């Protein structure tokens, strides 16, 4: 009962603020779509109808901007699924195919460049020592004999520090374990970038640019739809692929030429992830921080 009245009051104030905001903006000459985007509620507070409307609006915006038909979905998490990832450090050769595959699949900005995957080159004699790591290596051929390669992207923590620090709940952990961002709710304070121990979060320092012919038209609201200037983005385990009808593997898994990348359902005992956890030696990156990643590094050889 109490909650109900609270809600209505809140709705009322929101509505009033909305009208006030609308008046101000309309007088500034903002178009209807921009106004709707400005007043848009948090994704988790939207009704199904509102969601459908917003997805449609984003499709229209994309079409207007890129002149290309796109489909934006908001597929929710499936029950009984907890996604996990494994990466074989002994096999990765540091060719960066995953970096660019990810970039194309997920519509990352080409200018200014945003990469969700960072491949670190490290000395075999040093082990995983970040002070000796280098992500800017330029060589003719990889792997170099005395080096090993350590790709880092979002670790999809069970205990994500980025979610904890967000002042407006613009980022959260979905039931299938994927940490997502509502790009329309993010205020761009960059607390989460500071909180992330894996450098996995990236900020749109300028309006992102993607060549039209490279735009991936199959999009998810919480995933690879084009972002806007001033918001934070990150790896979503290719939510548009992994949650889609076909339940595809993430792009980086499919483009890795050495098969070092593994993906599956942690709750399915027959998944390759469970096989790896049961049979291989696993390395948890920055284990001491208790972030409990669902991204496992392992030694296949």
């Amino acid at each position: 009962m109490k909650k109900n009245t609270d809600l209505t009051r809140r709705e009322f104030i929101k509505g009033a603020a909305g009208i006030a905001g609308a008046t101000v903006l309309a007088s500034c000459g903002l178009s209807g779509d921009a106004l709707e985007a400005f007043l848009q509620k948090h994704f988790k507070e939207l009704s199904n109808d509102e969601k459908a409307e917003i997805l449609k609006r984003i499709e229209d915006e994309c079409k207007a901007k890129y002149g290309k038909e796109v489909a934006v979905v908001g597929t929710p998490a499936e029950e009984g699924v907890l996604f996990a990832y494994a990466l074989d450090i002994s096999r990765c050769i540091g060719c960066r195919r995953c970096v660019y595959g990810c970039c194309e699949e997920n519509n990352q900005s080409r200018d200014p460049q945003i990469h969700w995957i960072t491949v670190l080159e490290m000395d075999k004699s040093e082990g995983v020592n970040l002070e000796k790591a280098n992500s800017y290596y330029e060589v003719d051929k990889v792997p170099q004999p005395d080096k090993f390669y350590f790709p880092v992207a979002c670790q999809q923590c069970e205990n994500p520090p980025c979610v904890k620090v967000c002042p407006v709940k613009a980022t959260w952990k979905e039931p299938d374990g994927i940490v997502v961002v509502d790009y329309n709710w993010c205020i761009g304070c960059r607390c989460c970038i500071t909180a992330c121990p894996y450098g996995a979060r990236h900020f749109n320092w300028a309006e992102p640019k993607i060549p039209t012919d490279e735009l991936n038209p199959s999009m998810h609201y919480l995933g690879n739809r084009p972002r806007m200037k001033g918001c934070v983005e990150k790896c979503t385990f290719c939510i548009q692929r992994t949650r889609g009808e076909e339940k595809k593997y993430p792009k980086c898994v499919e483009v890795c030429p050495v098969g070092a990348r593994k993906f599956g359902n942690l709750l399915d005992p027959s998944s390759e992830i469970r096989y790896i956890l049961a049979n291989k030696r696993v390395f948890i990156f920055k284990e001491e921080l208790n972030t409990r990643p669902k991204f496992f590094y392992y030694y296949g050889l």
Partner: protein
Amino acid sequence: MNNYFKSSFVILSALIFFSCSKSGKSEETIKTNYESNKDSNLIAVASPPFSEFIFPCSRCHKNIEPNHKRRELVWAHDNIKLEHDEKNRWCLDCHDANNRDKLHLADGRLLDFTESYKLCGQCHGPTLRNWLAGEHGKRTGSWKGQKQYLLCVNCHNPHSPRFKPLEPLPRPMKPSELRDTNGIRL
């Protein structure tokens, strides 16, 4: 583990393999196959990477008397440099001398080229086990449903199996290189 191993074999041998160099055909084949075995969790493999016009081998070999003497090939296949335990092995340890379109296991059983992983598994047992479980090698497709495997030979040249170095894609831009590229400054 043994059971797992066995059942995987059953599943695999239930597959109809195909030997064509066109990838377009492969999806079709897998689908037919999948529907005829609805109950089993099928896996499919990619086609073996034959060089052009090389298969079927019998096309040339049917008129050639098998020569079992270990020797360096100069007449044909001189482009193949064996770097795969070459001190102890040579062509006919894997290729069948009497049926050139097949391979053979150590016990003499014949294999299609599409089943070559069994041949590899004779020596590389743990690797085969990991491959069947999806740990070694690349799987594509669906994390929940149909997957496609690459054969060992899709990545490892059987005559020289060490993975060849690749040219890496360009390095990421350094933070100091990210600049406001459009527009003038006030």
